[in-house]
């Protein structure tokens, strides 16, 4: 485990020294600040509005962070050949993947926490209460972000970065659709579309911004189950990524 942690910390440092993460974080904070300002232009229920759109902003931020952080890690390592000395001697491919993923996951967690705190500050500044479920809700969005991170890593092992981002966004959109809605995309083959949709992840389980915005209590068991589901899917995507990576020739 020590080699993985060391490599994760190396990845963390690397990502923090690059400008991408700061750029995305600033965009998220500006968006949250903007959401805090809009209600003053006449929209009623501003606390609800800030919460709803703020959590939505965090979710989009999680997606952008996942793509921004991870889509280029492996292709850059490969292109610059920084991968070779690492894989050749100290680390196995699994350790490489875990180290890179953990480093990016820590950055994603930190950015989401900053976003959550930023949203809380905006709520308080506008004279609203911070709901109790705000932190668990951010936790769920973070799990969604980690899952997306795993998806981005998976795609990065067999596509180029310019293709990785649209594929991830597509999966993100499709994963929010109902089975019926998905079948409507290609009604000629309902059976195939149903099977495909049921295999694809169900990201709607991470969405609790509506009840939170309406002050509805969410059972703790739900948080636990949704996180379990998200982490299980993340583990599955990482395993799939490793299977692809293990079978790749590194020239």
């Amino acid at each position, binding site marked *: 485990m020590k080699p993985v942690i060391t490599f994760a910390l190396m990845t963390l440092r690397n990502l923090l020294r690059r400008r991408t993460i700061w750029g995305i974080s600033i965009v998220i904070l500006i968006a949250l600040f903007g959401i805090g300002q809009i209600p003053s232009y006449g929209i*009623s*229920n501003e*606390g*609800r509005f800030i919460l*709803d759109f703020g959590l939505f902003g965090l979710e989009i931020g999680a997606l952008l962070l996942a793509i921004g952080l991870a889509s280029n890690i492996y292709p850059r390592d490969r292109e610059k050949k920084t991968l070779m000395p690492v894989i050749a001697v100290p680390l196995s491919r*699994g350790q490489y993947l875990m180290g890179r993923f953990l480093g990016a996951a820590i950055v994603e967690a930190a950015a989401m926490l900053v976003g959550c705190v930023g949203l809380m500050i905006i709520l308080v500044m506008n004279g609203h209460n911070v709901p109790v479920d705000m932190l668990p809700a951010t936790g769920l969005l973070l799990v969604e972000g980690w899952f997306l991170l795993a998806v981005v890593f998976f795609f990065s092992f067999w596509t180029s970065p310019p293709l990785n981002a649209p594929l991830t966004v597509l999966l993100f959109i499709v994963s929010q659709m*109902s*089975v*019926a809605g998905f079948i409507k995309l290609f009604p000629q083959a309902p059976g195939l579309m*149903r*099977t*495909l*949709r*049921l*295999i694809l992840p*169900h990201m*709607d*389980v991470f*969405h*609790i911004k*509506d*009840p939170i*915005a*309406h*002050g*509805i*209590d*969410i*059972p703790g*068991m*739900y948080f636990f*189950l*949704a996180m*379990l*589901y998200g*982490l*299980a*899917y993340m*583990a*599955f995507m*990482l*395993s*799939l990524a*490793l*299977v692809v990576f*293990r*079978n790749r020739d590194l020239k």
Partner: protein
Amino acid sequence: MKLTFAFLTSALLLLSACRTDYDIEEVATPQHLGTDHNDDCVECEDEDAEHVHTDHEHDADTSEPDLLRDESDENNASVISGSDRHVHDAGQRNHGTGWFFNQPWAASFIWGKMVRDSVILLILSAVMLFVPGYLRKRRR
């Protein structure tokens, strides 16, 4: 590799073969979906009659004209619309809010499916991670 792929495919198909899944529109009871809320339904008429009020405040906040809407809103627009729309206590169902309470957090009957899928996904992950190595060792 081939064995892993075969296992993966069959397990995923098994997962997809479970018809009852996350799509509440397909599997939920009519009560849960709120589709029984129509003008012909006697019970609903009673319910509607009981619920026709205007200034009933929501526990957490005021009315929710922006969020609580769906197609049935349009159908019933003449009955409940705009500031006349009645509201309930937090967590209580409202007319035209089926979509709101059809989300997974509210539909406890699909939580079991989440556990099922989590277990399948974790087993698949373990198979992908450990079986190829085990088979390689056995071959040697």
